[in-house]
């Protein structure tokens, strides 16, 4: 973070220095990949070199976004021999996503957790999960009193279950904290991360009152045949170590009009996802007809994730 020193150097010299640094780093990365020689991956190396200098996603024109996407797709093909399809679908007009969780119905099967890990290409090695399910005793109302590591037959007598994930706050403290503007709230209400712009300082993690963010402490590892190939630039595309990531309401699905993977996987129908601005949506029905509540309202973060009881 010796930006002061760097500031004094003009842009050209800086880029040169950074370029040589990137060559060293890039070489290390390419050589390390599945024993491929330097010669065989010179094309990949050139693309990684360009990737290193690319702009923040929000500053890219659509043409630049298309270029980076095609680069990333080619890299996936070259390095892992898989064909992925990364899209950059923009938020639709008059859409604001919201989520509701039926505390009465959830029975703690954790199908949602598995579906989420698979859909979002989350690291298997560190067992990272966006969704946490807490087993609660009656009389408790906040997941921090519950048991998040239960391992037995569910549902357990005298208990109920609460799911927790990123609540996509309307007033997100993580966005305020990020020193590089690498995380922000999209117009459809989803808080996203530009993985490639994140420097991994983890200030957003400290700022989140819901423990909604996950860091890649190690290089993520996903079995090749389990990789979800339909990807979004701000969603489930591949990440490397040192990047922050989080639940994006399955942006690769929701922006195409589908429900999130967790909603689809839930065997009890405890999860409701939809457009808050659509008066006929199920989420609006829940908000208007059920007794709903949110976690840590006193912090003023205005989460778009409600709990309700039948």
């Amino acid at each position: 973070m010796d930006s002061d020193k760097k500031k004094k150097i003009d842009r050209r010299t800086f880029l040169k220095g950074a370029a040589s640094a990137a060559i060293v780093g890039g070489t290390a990365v390419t050589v390390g990949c599945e024993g491929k020689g330097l010669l065989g991956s010179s094309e990949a190396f050139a693309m990684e070199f360009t990737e290193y200098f690319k702009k923040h996603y929000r500053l890219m024109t659509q043409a630049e976004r298309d270029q980076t996407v095609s680069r990333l797709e080619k890299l996936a093909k070259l390095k892992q021999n898989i064909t992925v399809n990364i899209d950059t679908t923009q938020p639709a007009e008059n859409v604001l996503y919201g989520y509701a969780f039926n505390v009465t119905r959830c029975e703690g099967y954790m199908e949602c957790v598995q579906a989420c890990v698979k859909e979002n290409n989350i690291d298997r090695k560190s067992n990272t999960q966006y969704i946490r399910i807490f087993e609660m005793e009656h009389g408790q109302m906040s997941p921090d009193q519950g048991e998040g590591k239960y391992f037995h037959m569910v549902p357990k007598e005298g208990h109920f279950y609460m799911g927790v994930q990123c609540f996509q706050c309307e007033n997100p403290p993580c966005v305020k904290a990020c020193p590089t503007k690498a995380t922000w709230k999209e117009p459809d209400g989803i808080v996203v991360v530009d993985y490639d712009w994140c420097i991994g300082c983890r200030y957003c993690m400290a700022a989140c009152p819901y423990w909604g963010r996950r860091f890649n402490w190690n290089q993520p590892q996903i079995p090749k045949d389990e990789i979800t190939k339909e990807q979004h630039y701000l969603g489930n595309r591949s990440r490397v170590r040192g990047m922050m990531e989080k639940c994006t309401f399955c942006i690769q699905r929701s922006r195409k009009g589908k429900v999130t993977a967790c909603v689809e996987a839930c065997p009890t129908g405890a999860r409701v996802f939809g457009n808050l601005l659509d008066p006929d949506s199920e989420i609006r029905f829940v908000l208007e007809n059920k007794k709903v509540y949110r976690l840590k309202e006193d912090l003023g973060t205005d989460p778009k994730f409600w709990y309700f009881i039948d």
Partner: protein
Amino acid sequence: MKKDTTSKGLFSFAKDALLWNLSGSVGYQIYLCILVCLMLIGVYGYFLQFKLGLSATNMSNIVSWGFYISNFTFLVGVAAAAVMLILPSYVFNDKDLHKVVIIGEVVAVGALVMCMSFVFVDLGRPMQAWHLIPGIGQLNFPSSLLAWDILVLNGYLALNALIPAYIVYCHYKGKEPVGKYYKPFVFLSIGWAVAIHMVTAFLYQGLPARPFWNNPLMGPRFLASAFAAGPAIISLVLHIVNSTTDYKIENKIFNKLRIIIVSAAIINLLMLFSEIFKEFYFPTHHSQSAMYLFFGLDGHNSLVPWIWTAISINLIGTLILAFNPFKERQIFLLPALILLIVGIWIEKGIGLIVPGLVPSPMGEIVSYSPSSVELFITVGIVGLGMFVITMLLKPALIIEKNYEDAYSEHR
């Protein structure tokens, strides 16, 4: 060295500084070798971390900041403490402290170098650090307190490096520095010193997600502990300078520093007591972190011995310094200074950062202690800081001594 003042330029200044730094007694050479070894340990540690990622540390999604950020927080205080010498010597024209103000500034530079190194090694993707630079990157200013911290730390480093550099360079050339060229920056640096520590406190204080940090006393307490630990470290450096060089420090300077340290340490202890009272008189759900720190929760009590050690040695150090049983023999106060420094380092480092993150917002409790890679890198950064301080201080003191001698001869 003080004769041909006209032929001396920047080049000979740099050359002389380098020569002075490399020459010295056998003991000094051994000392330099030890510092280089420490730095090599750090390089090895960082090599491992660069290869494995931050998984080489013991940090996790719950304790997401650990030993690096703890040390960073403590050292920002050390850097800010230079103001306790700058303020009396420039504003109140205190002649005694004026003689050692340069040492305070050099310690600040060393501390800042260590601060920035600690933040840098804590980054998950150091190669992308250029994303912070306005123009080619995007700095989230003024929204992110981390952006503020980057700006104020770099600004303070520039002030504390350039002001003494100008003064020493003038003295090297045998000239009196021109007040209007540097005095405005001196006054700026006084405000700036307070700013670096307040901003660093706000970094934590501004997070409602972490009740242990979200506390309006954080900023003032940071300053109080800084003005105790910082001058204590400067005192230590002065003792070393006094016993190893011919730049002699008078007893009354140590005494003045001692009074500054004691006052700040007492204010710090008062504020600590105020915080402990709030947490334990009527413990709420938000007192969990303090419980974890002082007594342990669910069998996770790795921090408990540390914090009690910190508080005890803090108290003992403060009492010895306050009553000064050794009167004019300042050297006997060294253990008390060290006790106080270590006490504040624990209390403000790992005793502040880790409990802020545990229990997690979802109530999970874990233990944390630094991994060997974290310790290697920390050792390396401390070596780097000591190296920077030595390399700046040695030529500066030789020049100051020569200038002083020439000045007194002249009179």
